């Protein structure tokens, strides 16, 4: 055969991945712009669509800038791991990346940390008592990673759960904020995430005005945290509106 | 139509065949099959209770494990496993032992070309030895297409490398039926293909040429199997 098995040969990408902090993020705070030209408090345009995968009970596709995610929901179905009887349902989450998700040659694998974060973000909102003894599987695949991957996965998963008809207290929306120097930037892209001083991710139920998950890492001052929280809550409720519209559209389309 | 083969065979001549059954103690059925220097051992365990996940419990299930001569199994072996499993499923009667799993283990002893057909023949003999209910036997053959358009049967490793294309074909063996000849409509059963796997580009006509030559060769193969099995039957009844 013409092609030899290539596993043995080692390869490298000709692209040079810059790992240094770009000069635009130096301390002269005021005169720089974000890589995609957005304002600091402006989110990327969101494209949301339900029913992306026909073989799943429910599914959704989300595209925020270059971040593209598909989430499929299966079930409620038989619990595969022979576990003890439980009168509430189980939630099983998995997040994986494609091999081409990011330009720096990364291996597409399961993302254990994001899988458990997704689980924690969702478990508070799903009415698990409505499907006793069974399991709902939420699987996410990040097709392309363009920053703020986890918040996009969480929001998309909540749409997929609705599409599957799983009972929930409310929609779930997630937004993250990066802190670079003195500025806060909402919905950061990969370049910004690479040189941030601190990151703040919030998952909340927009209608109930309740938070299901809050992650803060890095260096934060109290006023900055307060500001970030306000920014996130605001963005989450706006994202909630967009998601609601998307669901309404899907429902009216299926009615016709 | 002359074509030189390394070992002086005619194009349609097979390498010497050898088959012995019941060679291993532990398995419920076992067989070794060799075509020239290619030799494969097959062992059958089962039917065991229960089926694996994602399998239909209303039918008998088969599990196939391919053990290469050395090293780990790769994609090619996975493909062989899948082809063999499907082929075995199609020749066995699946409704007799529902909710059971039968394991077939193929151990490659030596690979000198036509490995997959050799493994299929070995698996078939081992299944017979284990007494698994079967509709009919499967007879496998490898047909090669040489540069000059001739079809060569049962190639060895050297020939396989030189050929432009080759096809692994599996046919049902000729059945001895009480029905008068020609009573069934259409083509006879043994002309139908169970499995076909091809590598390399060939024209449609060449493919049909392969199928025809393969079909003709399986008649003699199938006669060999029948004789061999009857022989084994007589021996065992004598000793028993």
């Amino acid at each position: 055969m013409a092609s030899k098995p290539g596993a043995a040969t080692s390869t490298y990408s000709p692209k040079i991945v810059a790992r240094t902090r770009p000069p635009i993020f130096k301390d002269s705070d005021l005169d720089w712009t974000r890589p995609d030209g957005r304002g600091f408090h402006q989110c990327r345009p969101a494209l949301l669509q339900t029913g992306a995968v026909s073989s799943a009970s429910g599914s959704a596709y989300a595209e925020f800038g270059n971040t593209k995610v598909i989430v499929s929901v299966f079930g409620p179905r038989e619990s595969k791991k022979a576990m003890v009887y439980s009168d509430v349902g189980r939630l099983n989450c998995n997040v994986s990346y494609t091999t081409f998700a990011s330009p720096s040659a990364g291996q597409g694998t399961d993302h254990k940390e994001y899988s458990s974060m997704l689980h924690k973000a969702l478990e508070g909102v799903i009415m698990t008592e409505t499907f006793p003894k069974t399991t709902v599987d939420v699987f996410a695949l990040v097709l392309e990673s363009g920053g703020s991957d986890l918040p996009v996965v969480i929001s998309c998963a909540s749409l997929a759960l609705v599409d599957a008809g799983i009972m929930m207290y409310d929609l779930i929306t997630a937004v993250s904020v990066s802190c670079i120097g003195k500025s806060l930037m909402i919905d950061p892209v990969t370049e910004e995430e690479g040189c941030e001083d601190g990151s703040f991710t919030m998952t909340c139920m927009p209608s109930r005005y309740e938070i299901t998950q809050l992650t803060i890492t890095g260096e934060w001052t109290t006023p900055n945290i307060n500001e970030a929280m306000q920014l996130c809550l605001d963005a989450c409720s706006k994202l909630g509106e967009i998601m609601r519209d998307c669901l309404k559209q899907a429902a009216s389309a299926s009615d016709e | 139509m002359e074509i030189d083969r390394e070992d002086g065979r005619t194009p349609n001549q097979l390498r010497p065949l050898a088959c012995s059954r019941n060679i291993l103690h532990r398995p419920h059925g076992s067989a070794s099959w060799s075509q020239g220097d290619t030799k494969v051992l097959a062992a059958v365990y089962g039917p065991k209770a229960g089926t694996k996940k994602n399998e239909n419990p209303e039918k008998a299930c088969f599990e196939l494990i391919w053990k290469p001569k050395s090293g780990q199994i790769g994609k090619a072996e996975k493909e062989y496993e899948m082809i063999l499993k499907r082929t075995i499923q199609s020749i066995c009667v699946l409704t007799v032992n529902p909710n059971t799993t039968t394991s077939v283990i193929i151990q490659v002893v030596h690979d000198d070309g036509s490995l997959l057909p050799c493994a299929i023949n070995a698996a078939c003999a081992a299944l017979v030895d284990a007494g698994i209910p079967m509709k009919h036997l499967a007879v496998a053959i490898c047909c090669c297409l040489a540069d000059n358009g001739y079809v060569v049967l049962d190639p060895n490793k050297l020939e396989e490398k030189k050929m432009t294309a080759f096809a692994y074909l599996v046919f049902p063996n000729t059945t001895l039926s009480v029905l008068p000849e020609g009573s069934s409509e259409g083509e006879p059963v043994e002309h139908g293909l169970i499995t076909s796997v091809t590598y390399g580009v060939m024209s449609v006509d060449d493919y049909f040429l392969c199928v025809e030559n393969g079909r003709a060769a399986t008649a003699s193969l199938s006669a060999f199997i029948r004789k061999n099995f009857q022989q084994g039957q007589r021996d065992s009844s004598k000793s028993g």
Partner: protein
Amino acid sequence: MGLPDSSQDLSSEMEVDAFRKIFPLRFFERHLSESLRPDGRPLGKARDTIVNLGLVSSADGSALAKIGYTTMLAAIRMEVMTPSTDSPDEGCIAVEFHMPPICSPTVRPGRPADAAPVISKRLLDTISSCNMIDLKELCLVSGKAAWMGYLDIYCLDADGALFDAALLSAVAAFSNLQIPVVALNDNGRIVAITGEEKQDNASITEKEAVNKERRKLTLKNIPFSLTCILHKNYILADPTAEEESIMDTLVTVVLDSSDQIVSFNKSGGNALAHTSAIKSCVELAKKRGNELKQILGEMDVD
């Protein structure tokens, strides 16, 4: 054996959906006897097919292929390798077919689907044996550096005929592939040249640029495939997942641009392929090949 008869009687009393679940084979055979399939297609017709190019911005070439609901996303990343001593002026292609858990209820995380490695292998066999790509075109510096194309195909939605869709997406991704501009630097490594750098140190790069402009590969021979189901005397082209699970005899025919057989694949199954059936499958594949050629052709114009 009283089952078929009892279902016959029930068919008039039961609801269609229940009948479909309980007697799937009967349900399909009733349709087939009318030369129609449950989704309204005639037996020999393939589902609607869509191909989109260049959806993945981080890859050098990508394509999305949809056949009915079956969706495949293919992307190619080009990396540099040292060619083997046997063929110092040839590059290499590696193909990996993935079935992530999102695509089908039968795939679970941590346990890869059985079908995935088999389809990977068949794709690589098909692409390499029909000489679609001249591996010499992937050479950069003879004996020192050559391109290694990593083709990754992700199944986003599995609804039958996976190999057909995967091959179509692979072919489309190769037609979309742009080989990046690279130069040999002082350390003997190949580095990419972006637009700005080229202006900055044009004197150095101009001289050493190995691959001066973004170029496309010439696809010499394009393979197209069609999967058919054989069931009794019926031949169903381009089956859905439901049809594949009920009627188990699948035949995959791959033909190249000059209608030669690249692969004729049938693994077991209850039905036997007789000469006439083989001929009809090849005919259907020819027709489908022309359809797909047209779909790919329309893309090139855009």
